[in-house]
């Protein structure tokens, strides 16, 4: 065979098993940003780089981190899930009610099923009926928040079984259970999105739905699944939250969807779908939490924190875009 490309094909490693390059340049830059932030914050506050504060940061990452995984799935398909905050609140109320007269594992299982069921509802409306994800999940958000008030009787539900807190406060090798769980969720999600047919189909749907469909991928199922994952993980997240505060508030999770979306987008995902990664999302979550934590340590007024976080998000995205332009020109 003549070789026009100037390379000796027989010696090149084909690397079907190499899979996706695990670390892409974007994620390296993100990691750099996380470290840079850590350095700046540790100079700004002596309390930042302490073991206690690091666990504090990880602990604060659990809820938003778990929700952001589901949000990544949805955004990768080119959708959006505005209902996660409301689903978080509603399934929290469900869980608190279930816990009144059921064993803990059964109650948690049912709450997670409820979250997945709400996701199924949104997913079917989006994938089968072709409604816009933004509008569908906006509607579900309003319904969910309203139902949390109805089911809770407009008040917080307390009196949860005291041993519920073991899912947060037990440790393994000195690491709290909720942080281990977070790491586990990210590992599974990363493996799933990178190495399985379902995961690659989710990417393909967001990148080019028509091509994915014509190639015989099960596009309908995997257009619905991300919304179910998102709903279910919102319920998982509220379980950890309940175990810490030991009460369910109908207003819980207000604005959580925006934090999750911000983390995913900071992590490099495209809102048009097809592009993004679970590692990026994890780094995005860490950036968000670290900034908030650092501002608290520095004693910045909570009213200014929104301005600070918003500005940092915009600057980070702008820097990313500029770097992208530069590299494309070279």
């Amino acid at each position, binding site marked *: 065979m003549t070789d026009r490309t100037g390379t000796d094909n027989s010696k090149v490693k084909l690397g079907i098993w190499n899979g996706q390059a695990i670390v892409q340049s974007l994620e390296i830059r993100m990691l750099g940003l996380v470290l840079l932030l850590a350095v700046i914050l540790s100079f700004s506050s002596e309390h930042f780089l302490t073991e206690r504060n690091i666990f504090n940061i990880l602990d604060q990452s659990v809820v938003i981190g778990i929700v952001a995984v589901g949000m990544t799935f949805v955004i990768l398909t080119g959708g959006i899930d505005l209902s996660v905050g409301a689903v978080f609140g509603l399934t929290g109320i469900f869980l608190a009610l279930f816990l009144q007269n059921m064993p803990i594992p059964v109650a948690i299982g049912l709450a997670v099923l409820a979250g997945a069921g709400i996701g199924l509802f949104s997913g079917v409306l989006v994938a089968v009926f072709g409604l816009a994800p933004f509008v569908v999940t906006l509607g579900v958000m309003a319904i969910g928040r309203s139902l949390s008030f109805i089911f809770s009787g407009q008040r917080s539900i307390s009196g949860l079984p005291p041993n519920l807190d073991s899912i947060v406060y037990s440790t393994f090798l000195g690491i709290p259970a909720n942080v281990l769980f977070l790491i586990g969720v990210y590992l599974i999600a990363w493996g799933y999105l990178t190495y399985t047919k379902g995961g690659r189909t989710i990417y393909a749907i967001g990148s080019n739905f028509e*091509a994915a469909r014509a190639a015989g991928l099960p596009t309908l199922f995997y257009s619905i699944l991300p919304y179910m994952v998102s709903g279910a993980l919102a319920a998982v997240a509220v379980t950890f939250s309940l175990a810490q505060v030991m009460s369910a508030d109908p207003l819980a999770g207000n604005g959580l969807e925006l934090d999750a979306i911000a983390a995913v987008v900071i992590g490099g995902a495209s809102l048009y779908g097809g592009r993004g990664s679970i590692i990026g999302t994890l780094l995005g979550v860490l950036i968000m939490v670290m900034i908030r934590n650092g501002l608290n340590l520095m004693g910045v007024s909570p009213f200014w924190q929104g301005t600070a976080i918003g500005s940092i998000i915009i600057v980070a995205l702008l820097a990313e875009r500029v770097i992208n332009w530069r590299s494309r020109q070279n």
Partner: protein
Amino acid sequence: MPAMQPYTLEHVRSAPLLTAQNVTKRFGSTRALTDTSLEMRSGEVLGLLGANGAGKSTLSRIVSGHIRPTSGILTFDGDPLELGSTRDALRVGIALVAQETSLAPDMSVLENIFLPGLATPGRLSYRDMRRNATEILAALGHDHVLPLDAEVRTLSAAQRQLVEIAKALALDARLVIFDEPTASLSAAEVDRLFDIIARLRDDDRALGFVSHRLEEIFAITDRVTILREGRVVLEDAETGSLSQNDIIRHMVGRDIGTIYSKRKMKSEGTGETVFEVRGLRSMPWVRDIGFSVRRGEILGLGGLVGAGRSEAVEAVWGLRPRQAGEILVNGKPIKIKKPVDAVRAGLGFVAEDRRAQNIVPDFNVRENLMIAQMGKNRGFGRGYGQKEARVRELLMELELPLDRMDQSLLNFSGGMQQKVIIARWLLIEPDILILDEPTKGVDIGTRSSVYRLLQAAAEDGLGVIVISSDFEELLGLAERIVVVSDGLSIADLPADGLSEDKLALIAAPRTSTARNQALLSSLVNAYGGEAFWCLLDEEQTICLARAGAELTGMRPGQALKTEETSIPRAIRCCGDDFIGEGSLQTLLTQMTDTRGHDLGWIGLTLPEGGDPPGTALIRSQIMDLNRGNEEERS
């Protein structure tokens, strides 16, 4: 004393109306044009040729002020020309009729024709505009086909183009460049466009014609300039002095020989029918389409754009709802509800629009290659590992660099992309491969390797189905051609002995076929017996339609060897009369259109005995009916 030069045509050519000298254009770090020059003269059509990416569109956009050159000099009518915008170009009288039109879809035809003038201060007189528009359209010979008050969005592609041309003439453009104007036109519309271009040339305007379709270049241009990789490789050569091979050689820079090297078919009929579609219906585009392909065979699905070919295969693929139809693989009916059913039944499908239907842009080359394999795979994993050896083999065959597997597929040329998409399906080792316009946007050099790929696939025993609007390609590639027209499969013919003209005639829209059918019926009503419409040459007789009693045994879409019929005898001996054949007698009459093109023959077959009616009377009736058709057609 200088030697006398022979007096040639050169000497009577006018001075160039427009010249471009040493024009260079850079986009970022890439050079789209390097030191190109161009001359255009009044009363001439200059063809601007080149493969994809050769720079022909860039050059015409520079000349018409759409983009500024990085360096270089333009002159117009002897004076230096500085173009800051299209408005500058229009002011001196240079217009570009672009591929994607620059019309305002919500405004009327009239407003669009005078769109550049609408931006100037002063009162608009719709009455003057209307009068001018009517004059312009009359000059183009089309005053009756363009309703001035219709919104442009309701027009066909050909009509929009006509509005663009009228717009250029409203500004009294002295130089008009047509950038790939025929891409979305039917054969009849192309003919009409060429009439217009010829009129404009006779009106002493300078015309540019950008294209890569060779037949059109020979049909309409006086001279050609050929570009390759941003440089002029042949400047201002007389079209008549060039052969197709000369042009191709200049365009691709090497002799590619015949791009269609017809492969030797294995002995006729060895392959069994591997795939069959019967009575397919998917409204509104597909009314009744059927075709079948054998192992080792390349079947062409021909027809005009919009005939329903793409829609038919998309319906087969489960991308469109079907109202009726049977699909058989290896003789067994299969149910296809969604694409994966087709994939698992052993089919592969390269859809028409590469960017919209085939490429997953965020996937690298490897994943784009593997995606059909993943679709076929039933497991939880991606199933990439199963085919490693086959991938390596395929990439070698395709001359694809293995070390670029991790790059984005979008970094590759159109031809490379297409090869990867075809390889995607070869990888799952299908029994049947369907390709919709496989060489669309693929330059002529890569095209031949796509053809080789398809021929090799057929050699390996696949049934290959190719859809193409390019009749030359279809005839060169396919062994058999099923012609689709207006949602119906109307003919199933061996490619040998078919020509582009014949294909074009068979593929002509159903309206004319319906009228010819009416003609046949009225003949049968008047005289009884059987009437048929066929195309015939020395080798083949192709029946297009029939009516009445079944006397001759001809069926629509059927091809007979001419020598085996009594037709040659009929034409030779009894030009003006019925010819007897066994117990039958047949009268043949040739139909032609106003330009003298053969439209086929009308035959009337009656049982022998009884008094045959006066042949002159029948003939004149056929002619009258045919003339009626002609007028309605044009």
